[in-house]
């Protein structure tokens, strides 16, 4: 019947929908503003650190920037690594406990209590780490270096104060624990019931169900959670500054009083007295930390890419 060429009636024509465009504009602008903000931070870091790369470098007895930043970068990565190998398994354990082991009614309360850890200011972690934890760990360090000193990690004399890189890493681990736990918990809760029931119906025990359904589903979530936690660990400043007994060394020893420092805590320790070239050097170490973060993120993304998320929205 209607073979007439289609000319849309005004009823279907848009007036142009300004609200839609404005809203999308605001959202896009917000996204872009992050780009800008990060760009500004990057520019700030680069511009302010340029003088550090000059020839007359002389900070803390080192004669070039690499010599200065090397041990710090090592310490940063080493401390974060130690913190992560402690925190990630424990966080996964806690998240599993909350989601699959604890009685339902208790679970949300427990979750809340763990979240409390996230509320503790880093200064307080510093005070606690330096004055409570270090003293608590000291006998263990003495025992380790007396009895297991042949293992390189425990070589040499033990710290007389307990302010070692291991203590600092434990503090870091406790600090990132609630972050990793909270996110993993959310992800585990999202495990499709269907998959959990599928494995149970096959006669799986609780642990087997977790292995078959929960962990594969949550793998990418655990990685994201760990990245967030790692970000915090890499950048933590005050707690490390207060807990660690630092030196400008590269050392894997866990129990000694001579420990590599971290970039962020070194900035906090040196910045108040720094001037001129030294300020630039410190900001340049911040730039290095920034780059380390980018690399670590890239690595994690690559890991994620190899093990893509299955299921989920979109």
């Amino acid at each position, binding site marked *: 019947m209607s073979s007439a060429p289609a000319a849309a009636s005004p009823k279907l024509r848009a007036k142009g929908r300004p609200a839609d465009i404005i809203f999308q504009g605001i959202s896009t602008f917000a996204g872009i503003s992050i780009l800008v903000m990060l760009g500004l931070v990057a520019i700030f870091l680069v511009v302010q650190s340029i003088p550090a790369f000059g020839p007359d470098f002389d900070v*803390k*007895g080192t004669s070039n920037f690499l010599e200065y930043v090397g041990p710090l970068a090592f310490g940063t990565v080493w401390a974060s690594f130690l913190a992560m190998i402690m925190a990630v398994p424990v966080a996964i354990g806690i998240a599993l406990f909350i989601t699959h082991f604890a009685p339902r009614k208790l679970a949300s309360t427990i979750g809340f209590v763990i979240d409390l850890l996230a509320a503790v200011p880093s200064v307080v972690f510093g005070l606690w780490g*330096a*004055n409570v934890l*270090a*003293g608590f760990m*000291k006998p263990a360090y003495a025992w380790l270096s007396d009895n297991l000193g042949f293992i390189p990690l425990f070589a040499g*004399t033990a*710290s*007389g*104060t*307990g*302010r070692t890189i291991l203590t600092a890493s434990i503090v870091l681990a406790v600090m990132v624990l609630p972050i990793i736990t909270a996110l993993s918990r959310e992800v585990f809760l999202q495990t499709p019931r269907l998959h959990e029931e599928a494995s149970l119906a096959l006669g799986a025990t609780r642990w087997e169900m977790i292995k078959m359904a929960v962990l594969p589903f949550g793998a990418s979530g655990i990685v994201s959670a760990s990245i967030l936690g790692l970000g915090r660990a890499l950048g933590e400043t005050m707690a490390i*500054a*207060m807990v*660690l*007994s*630092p*030196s*400008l*060394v590269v050392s894997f020893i866990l129990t000694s*009083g*001579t420990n590599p*420092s971290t970039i962020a805590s070194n900035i*906090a*320790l*040196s*910045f*108040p*007295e*720094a*001037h001129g070239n*030294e*300020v630039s050097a410190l900001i340049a170490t911040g730039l290095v930390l920034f780059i380390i973060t980018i690399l670590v993120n890239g690595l994690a993304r690559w890991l994620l890419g190899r093990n893509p998320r299955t299921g989920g929205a979109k």
Partner: protein
Amino acid sequence: DESEDTTGGETSSISGTLNGVGASSMGGAQTVWIAGFQTANPDVTVNYDPAGSGAGVEAITGGGADYAGSDAVLEADATSPVCAADGYPVNLPVYISPVAVVFNLEGIDSLNMDAETIANIFKGEITNWNDEAIASQNEGVELPDQAITAVHRSDESGTTENFAEYLSAVAPDTWDAEPDKVFPYEGGEGAQQTSGVIDAVTNNQGTIGYADASRAGELGTVALKVGEEYVEFSADAAAAVVETATIEEGRQDGDLAFEIDRTTTESGVYPLVLVSYTVACSSYEDAEKGALVHAYLTHVISEEGQQAAADEAGSAPISASIRDQITESIAGMVE
């Protein structure tokens, strides 16, 4: 600006805000002075941010503060945007405090040591409390067979610099590093700030550290060998060494940069002291600011001010002669 408008102060009508940044060593004393000054002048707010000497120097030379605190003197040719055209930054020694070498050994309150021994302990050459070098100076004291844990500052610090200056002046062969704010050797353990050092020493047996004497508390302290006798730290002994100090050559009028004679052998003098300076302008670009700084510094160096700091922050009051010199230095601020 939040300064209250009430004219309630009976004692004064000056008002305004004064910002200082600098050495943490005199943070406690500044709190005392500020409290006293603000009580007398309710419309004034003085802030002192104990961010560190470096931050103070950066701030005053960059124009980021009205005055600064510094453990080390400003270079002679430094300038500041807050100074008047004919003004220049001056160093004013307002805070003198002995640095104590503190230790934690059960049942021992005091030990005698010469600079050589202290240097060797902090370098990690002497590692046990029953070492002959210590024992020989402390006859009658039962020294335990215990490892020494030497605690130094992990942050950059004026205390470290003064400690190192003393050791390198008196025991130059042992302490062979250039005195600096950074602790130069790898041995020992680091802790942040005076509080960190005090905590590390207090919480652990067999430890030794150095810290502003006001924080020594119950800890054992070392009497330094000066000449042929051993001197415990005290405000008087510390003030005495400053009396013997000379003003550095080549400084402008009113710039009171001290050179302390660490190697003195005079009796009753404790040469391990920290002198902290207030850095201000000889005259200010902004006259009101100048008047405010002048009023404040007058309070700081006043006898009550110095005594309050001695009582509440453990410093050694400056002598009358230094007070006179400073009064002269700051006179230009109100002209």
